[in-house]
């Protein structure tokens, strides 16, 4: 902890740049896109990149660049709330399990195992049947999928903190477990949580694309990377750019967030920091 708490590494830099690009693109799409993304221009359908717009046009003559930009926003708009919701609930459960242990811990962890057994796509179909398939179902499904992930991670690191001497001292003088959790445990595990949020975001973007591909996520005509891929399928031989563009967008976003997560772990994780000291 000499100059900065962050130590820069390649993964962090590359990941940071890619993620920043994703976020900037998404935000930019709110105020500006090269074309109106939903505008149909049949005369310009299936144009190759640079023939009409930077990345060409799709089967309705819509501008692929604009679709990708708005798609980035839609992707984040589902992934962010979903991961944050899952993280909030999961962290609360994990902290509680670590603080009270015993039977509460057992119940929380076994319940997590049960939820963990359902893939996000399956939960999305079930939730879709309950609340109607669409963006809300996608958010809830991804959130539910994230709860056990955060519960486990939180419990694991929190348990380590609870074994520390000063926590034992705090307990000895009668400090309430909730107070200990909020004032001592959470700040200490924040780094691990941030790393986990980043990695789960990558997974959430991938899941959202998968759900939209299956028609369970963002509703048409609102653009989504997943649906762009599914629309592109039958045009693969005529207009391969329709599949390549969203494919690369998804790959770069997921790669960026994963690298950022790895980079942050290397930079923030106290255990690694001690070793390299």
């Amino acid at each position, binding site marked *: 902890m000499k100059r900065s708490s962050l130590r820069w590494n390649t993964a962090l830099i590359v990941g940071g740049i890619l993620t920043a690009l994703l976020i900037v693109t998404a935000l930019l799409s709110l105020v500006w896109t090269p074309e109106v993304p*939903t*505008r*149909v221009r*049949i005369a310009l*359908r299936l144009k190759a990149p640079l023939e009409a717009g930077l990345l060409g046009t799709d*089967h*309705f*003559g819509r501008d692929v660049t604009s679709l990708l930009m708005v798609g980035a926003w839609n992707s984040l708009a589902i992934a962010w709330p979903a991961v944050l919701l899952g993280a909030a609930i999961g962290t609360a459960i994990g902290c509680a399990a670590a603080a009270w242990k015993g039977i509460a811990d057992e119940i929380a962890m076994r319940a997590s195992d049960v939820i963990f057994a359902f893939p996000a796509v399956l939960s999305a179909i079930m939730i879709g049947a309950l609340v109607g*398939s669409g963006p809300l179902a996608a958010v809830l499904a991804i959130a539910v999928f994230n709860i056990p992930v955060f519960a486990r991670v939180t419990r694991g690191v929190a348990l380590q903190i609870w074994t520390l001497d000063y926590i034992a001292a705090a307990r000895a003088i009668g400090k309430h477990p909730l107070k200990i959790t909020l004032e001592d445990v959470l700040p200490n595990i924040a780094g691990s949580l941030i790393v986990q949020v980043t990695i789960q975001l990558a997974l959430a973007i991938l899941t959202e694309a998968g759900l939209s591909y299956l*028609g369970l996520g963002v*509703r*048409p*005509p609102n653009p989504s990377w997943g649906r762009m891929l599914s629309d592109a*399928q*039958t*045009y693969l*031989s*005529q207009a391969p750019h329709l599949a390549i563009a969203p494919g690369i967008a998804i790959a770069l976003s997921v790669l960026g967030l994963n690298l950022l997560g790895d980079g942050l772990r290397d930079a923030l994780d106290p255990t690694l920091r001690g070793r390299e000291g």
Partner: protein
Amino acid sequence: MSKRFLAAALLFSVSIAPALAAKTSLVIGMPIEPPGLDPTIAAPVAIREVTWANLYEGLVRIDRDGRVQPLLAKSWDISPDGLTYTFRLQPGVKFHDGTAFDSADVKFAFDRARAPTSTNAQKQIFAPIDTIETPDPLTVVIKLKEPSGNFLYYLGWGDAVVVAPETAENNKANPVGTGPFKFKSWTRGDKVELVRNADYWQKDKTKLESVTFRFISDPQAQVAALRAGDVDAFPNLGAPELFTEFKKDARFKAVVGNTEGEIVAGMNNAKKPFDDVRVRRALMHAIDRMALVEGAYSGYGQPIGGFFSPNHPAFVDLTRVVPYDPAKAKALLAEAGYGKGLSITIKVPQMAYASRSAELLSAMLAEVGVEMKIIPTEFPAKWIEEVFKAKDYDVTIVAHAEPLDIDIFARDNYYFNYKNDKFKALIADIAKTTDEKMRFAKYGEAQKILAEDVPALFLFQLPKLGVWNAKLKGLWENSPIPSNDVTDASWSD
């Protein structure tokens, strides 16, 4: 070395042997699985596409050119007043369960179809019937209450096939008819298998030993199945953009045929704002049908302005009645009180033509200030339940595949909720008109009423994009009636 050569030669001869004898099995691909196998109790086209002319037969049939031909009735007389039809039946016809076919079966089948409790989808076929008499086992005399211009033609439909009293109840799951193929098995979600009926009354009519109908909804999977040879023919390929590739491939025959299917976006005419003709016309004005055909069906398909097949001699091109004119659309919407915008929903079945058209319609309507939200639904089960029966919808989109079905707009309680007494009276009048020229003129009038009143958004005529193995012969290129008649199908080597 010589041993190896011998082994190779053996292997070669083994692999070539089956190709020498002509193939006698056929696998037909279909996009939608039928909900049952009895065409006399339910509407879905998929039922007819498996059963009509293959499993079941009627007194007459429609041939590949849309003409009426004798089938179970070898001949008939019509009295000069057009009220008495005397059918002479084919002797020696047996149902698949071995029981003989006679005039009593015809009477039973028609009485069952026109009974008040019947769920027959085309009751108008039987509505003019007064009495059915069976003077002897091979004669049926049908007396009509009033002349019916399309009576014989209608009797060729799947809804009027002859079923036996002993087996009719179970035809939904275990169909028994008089056709050239017998039902073998049905693996739900996958396929229906038929085998040759050895006792068929037209000896040696069919060359195939077995026919399998496989249900593949995903267009990409349809293409893969064709390429891999898992499916020999897809009479209605789901993805027009993939059709072009087959045109270039010598292993396949790719044929653009016509169908009787009009793709329309039906509106709930009883519901606000669709009860206002200005709104309906405004929506129609907002739609560029040429662009729609291009975008949704790669340019195959003919724009329509009314609800009538362009293949029919009485067809009138009415696409100019409510043409593409966004400015007019906006003006009409403003006049109807929706100048500030309108928000509606469309329930869209999973078929590619429907979801693509819906997305395009939504984009075109957005240009005139109408926000149309897309709600996916599933065809047929969920769509029938929500839209067709419960009428819980604003707008929907589906192809109406039956020929000469303009009368659906005259039906009470049909899903459009459309009520127009003038049109209803005209349709009733047409049914009674036996003079062809007069009838066609009246059909023209009926088309004009609909084109002006726009009870549904008339979009385009669905083409039949058929792809099949180049060695396969005898499949229908056009679809004058929804069917996959494989009676004449055979392999060329």
